[in-house]
C-alpha cells in the first residue's frame, strides 16, 4: 500500500504520519525496498498487476528494516497529481499558520482539490487533528472544530472507544473496543448543529468517542472522530501516528493505519498486486 501524506507550510506531524503509514503497511508495498515495478493496489484494481517482491509479502513484519514501505511519500501542498497513491493522510500541525481559523486556508490548496477527487473516487483519506479540521472546512466531513472548552492546549495519553461507523479505516477494530491514542490539540471541540449531529449519529458516522470521563475539549456526544457517509474519509482529533512504536507506550495507532488494507474493498486489489 503506497501512501501520500500532505505537507502544508505549517504542518508538523507529517513525518510521524509518513513513518506510521510505512511501518503499518510495510508488508503491503508492492515494490517495497526491493524497488519493484508494480503500480499501486488502488490503480491496479482487478486488472492483474505485476507481482510484488516475495520478501515484502512473506516477511512482512511491521517495523523498520527490509520490509519498510519506501514508496510512500510526502505530497507538497502545490501538487495535484496523486496517481499511484492508495491512501492519503492529511496530517496535524498548523496549515498556513491557521491564522484565520484552523484549516480555513488549507482547504483551498491545490492538493486538497486533488484529495477531494481522490475521496470522491472512494480512495481512503485520513485527517488527523489539523487534517480533521481541514476536512471539515473542505466539506468532506460534516461539522466543525472549536477551541477547547478550557481554551488550553492539551497533550497527554488518552483512550478512545471505537464507534459504530462501517469504515475501511476501522476494519482492524471492533465497535466498543478501547484503544489508547494520544490527545494533542487546542481546537478539538467537535461541534455540529443539532440536525447535523443527529444525522451523524443516525448514519453511524461516529468512528471514535472519547472514553467515559476523558472528553478533553467539550466535544458534543464525546465525538473524537467521524467518517463521511461512504466511510472512506475519516477525521479524528487524537493522534494515531504518535502511537505506532512501543516507545510511545501504545501501538494502537497501527490498527487504524492498517484499516484500509484490511478492508474487503481494498484487500482484493492488494491481493492481486501481491500475487
Amino acid at each position: 500500500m503506497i501512501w501520500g501524506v500532505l505537507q502544508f507550510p505549517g504542518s508538523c506531524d507529517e513525518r510521524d504520519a509518513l513513518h506510521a503509514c510505512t511501518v503499518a503497511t510495510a508488508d503491503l508495498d508492492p515494490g517495497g525496498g526491493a524497488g519493484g515495478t508494480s503500480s499501486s493496489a488502488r490503480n491496479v484494481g482487478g486488472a492483474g498487476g505485476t507481482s510484488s517482491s516475495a520478501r515484502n509479502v512473506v516477511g512482512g513484519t511491521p517495523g523498520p528494516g527490509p520490509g519498510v514501505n519506501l514508496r510512500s511519500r510526502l505530497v507538497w501542498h502545490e501538487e495535484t497529481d496523486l496517481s499511484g497513491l492508495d491512501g492519503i493522510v492529511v496530517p496535524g500541525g498548523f496549515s498556513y499558520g491557521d491564522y484565520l481559523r484552523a484549516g480555513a486556508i488549507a482547504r483551498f490548496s491545490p492538493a486538497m482539490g486533488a484529495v477531494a477527487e481522490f475521496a470522491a473516487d472512494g480512495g481512503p483519506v485520513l485527517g488527523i487533528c489539523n487534517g480533521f479540521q481541514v476536512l471539515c472546512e473542505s466539506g468532506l466531513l460534516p461539522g466543525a472544530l472549536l477551541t477547547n472548552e478550557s481554551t488550553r492546549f492539551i497533550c497527554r495519553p488518552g483512550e478512545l472507544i471505537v464507534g459504530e461507523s462501517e469504515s475501511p479505516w476501522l476494519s482492524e477494530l471492533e465497535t466498543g473496543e478501547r484503544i489508547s491514542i494520544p490527545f494533542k490539540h487546542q481546537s478539538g471541540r467537535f461541534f455540529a448543529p443539532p440536525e447535523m449531529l443527529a444525522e451523524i449519529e443516525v448514519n453511524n458516522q461516529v468512528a471514535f468517542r472519547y472514553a467515559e470521563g476523558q472528553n478533553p475539549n467539550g466535544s458534543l456526544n464525546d465525538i473524537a472522530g467521524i467518517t463521511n457517509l461512504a466511510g472512506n474519509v475519516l477525521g479524528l482529533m487524537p493522534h494515531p501516528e504518535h502511537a505506532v512504536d512501543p516507545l510511545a507506550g501504545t501501538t494502537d495507532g497501527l490498527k487504524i493505519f492498517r484499516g484500509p488494507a484490511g478492508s474487503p474493498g481494498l484487500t482484493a486489489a492488494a491481493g492481486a498486486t501481491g500475487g
Partner: protein
Amino acid sequence: MISVRVLIRPKEGILDAQGKAVEGALPALGFEGIEHVRVGRIVELRAEDDRLLEELCEKLLANPLIEDYEIEIL
C-alpha cells in the same frame, strides 16, 4: 474602491471559550457587573465593489456553521 469591515462572531448558543475566559478574569481585575462576554474578530479590507463580499465571508472569512458575520461598508 470601497472600505469594508466584516465583523465575525461565534454563533449565539455556541460556547465561546475565549469570551468565557475573559469573563472569568474580570472579577479578579475589579470589574463587576459585566457578563455575556463574547470574543470575535474584525476583518478590514478594501474592494472594488461589494459583489464578492458575501461569498468571501461564506467561503473563507467565516465558517457559517459556527460563526455569524456582518458586512459593513464604511
